[in-house]
């Protein structure tokens, strides 16, 4: 019985009869087409990843070189001043501090608003209002960042504060970050099985406590990923900062506390890259510090991602 079956199967696969030549030709064509297409998609993948690697390599190489350049354009031993001093002393310290201030303020505003909005959309949002919130959040995610910049510049810089400031930049970045966080948080909370919510509710746990103690902890790594993504996106924004923080090159004051003042113009890494990359090639320090600022910006984002990974490591009980 079994051998008969095997026999029949072999026969079914064998191409016989008057159309056998055509069948074989089709099979051969299909094999060639398959090979070509597989090669094409592989090439496209290589191109995409390859380009990224080339950019990364170039930024790391040129950026690292810039750490040895002095303010007068000469090269010497590793220039530790690069990370702390002002440009006239061969550094971009104010820009680094400025980015930390502006992104920090942005995150401080956007994380609570974004996470709570995400909780609303996932846990409470029903009907037209939730639909509108979701739709507008999606629109905001795709809004060109320069428009956010113009908006904040008009509303705050011109008409409220009357001058450029780190806070205005932070608010502009928060407007960019909050919808990203809200939508990511909504999506990860929706992935938490409903069975867990029901289990908690059926134990007589109120809904808010169910959300805080059961739903959010189950989704914590996804929430942190969303926050980090939004920080990475905001840290690289240039256009809104150009219009809101002015991008000064010096510190505000001589002590650390004074330098943290968010109500005065500050610098930032993206605006530093923009300004310095525009100098003529003979301004060696300017050009090289644009690369240095790029490397530092990438490193800051990388450190953020690693910290997020570290913060959520092994949170699950075995």
């Amino acid at each position: 019985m079994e051998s008969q079956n095997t026999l029949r199967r072999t026969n079914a696969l064998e191409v016989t009869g008057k159309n056998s030549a055509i069948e074989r030709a089709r099979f051969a064509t299909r094999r060639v087409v398959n090979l070509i297409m597989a090669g094409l998609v592989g090439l496209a993948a290589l191109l995409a990843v390859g380009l990224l690697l080339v950019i990364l390599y170039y930024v790391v190489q040129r950026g690292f070189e810039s750490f040895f350049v002095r303010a007068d354009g000469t090269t010497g031993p590793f220039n530790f001043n690069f990370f702390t001093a002002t440009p006239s002393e061969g550094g971009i310290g104010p820009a680094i501090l400025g980015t930390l201030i502006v992104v920090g303020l942005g995150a401080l505003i956007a994380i609570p608003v974004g996470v709570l909005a995400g909780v609303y959309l996932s846990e409470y949002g029903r009907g037209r209002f939730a639909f509108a919130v979701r739709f507008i959040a999606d629109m905001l995610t795709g809004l060109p960042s320069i428009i956010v910049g113009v908006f904040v510049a008009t509303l705050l810089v011109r008409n409220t504060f009357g001058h450029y400031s780190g806070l205005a930049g932070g608010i502009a970045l928060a407007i960019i970050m909050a919808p990203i966080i809200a939508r990511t948080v909504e999506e990860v909370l929706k992935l938490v099985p409903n069975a867990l919510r029901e289990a908690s509710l059926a134990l007589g746990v109120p809904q808010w406590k169910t959300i805080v103690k059961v739903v959010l902890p189950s989704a914590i790594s996804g929430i942190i990923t969303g926050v980090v993504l939004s920080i990475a996106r905001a840290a690289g924004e240039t256009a809104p900062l150009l219009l809101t923080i002015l991008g000064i090159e010096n510190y505000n004051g001589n002590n650390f506390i004074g330098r943290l003042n968010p109500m005065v113009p500050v610098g930032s890494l993206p605006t530093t890259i923009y300004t310095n990359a525009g100098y003529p090639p003979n301004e060696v320090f300017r050009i090289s510090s644009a690369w240095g600022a790029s490397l530092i910006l990438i490193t800051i984002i990388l450190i953020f991602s690693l910290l997020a990974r570290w913060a959520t490591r092994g949170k699950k009980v075995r």
Partner: protein
Amino acid sequence: MQAQEEINTTTPVAGAVLAESAVKGKGMSVRNLNAYYGNYLAVKGVNMDMEPNKVTALIGPSGCGKSTLIRTLNRMHEVTPGSPRVEGEVSIDGQNIYAAGIDPVRVRRLIGMVFQKPNPFPTMSISENVLAGIKLNGGRIGRKEGLEIVEQSLRQAALWDEVKDRLSRSGASLSGGQQQRLCIARTIAVQPEIVLMDEPCSALDPIATLKIENLIEELKSQYTIVIVTHNMQQASRVSDYTAFMLATDGPGHLIEFGPTSQIFTKPTEKRTEDYITGRFG
């Protein structure tokens, strides 16, 4: 009025302290109950009484409203999606749980529920799972008292011997049958009066099912139990009373309700007989 008192003042911790006080479990009565999803009437006109310290089984084909009905008994119906709504009365000791001013959260502390798929909290250990109902409700318990509740609840759920050496492991590390017994332990740790079980064995293998069935037999000395099941043999094995539901002609409703022995040997309704003899459904 006494039940009102009960619903308003019983805290899980106080309940846990009273755990050793022998027989408890309260009866429940359902009057003219209609359950809706929006405008869709899913369960219509149910009247039945659950005797204290007895097991009542709800049987019937898929979609007849058994699960909807059992979820109305501890106000879990209203947290399902689809604008759910309930009319009629469900009473414990004469107190309607749907009366104005009754907090559904307190109702659920009094009437626990075990679900179809085991759902231990994945971020919590075995002992944390057992204590979840107490801890999440803000109850403050000492370490020693906590351990006592964990042991006692796991013993009652016939799980203690299997997990006593790994209480700090994740609840998700257990097998399906063990997870379901962990969920039962979690439910009885808050010392409810009534335990509702919505097809508690349908995701389990026959041996795990047998363990849960034996457990139900044990538990009924302390709790009133209502169980939804697809499995008629199970209903006949574990229950004292059986309710048969159908939704073939309109919304789901009760066809017949009575002592299990009578329902399975001489049902008064032709449709009940057809169903339990396997002629349809």
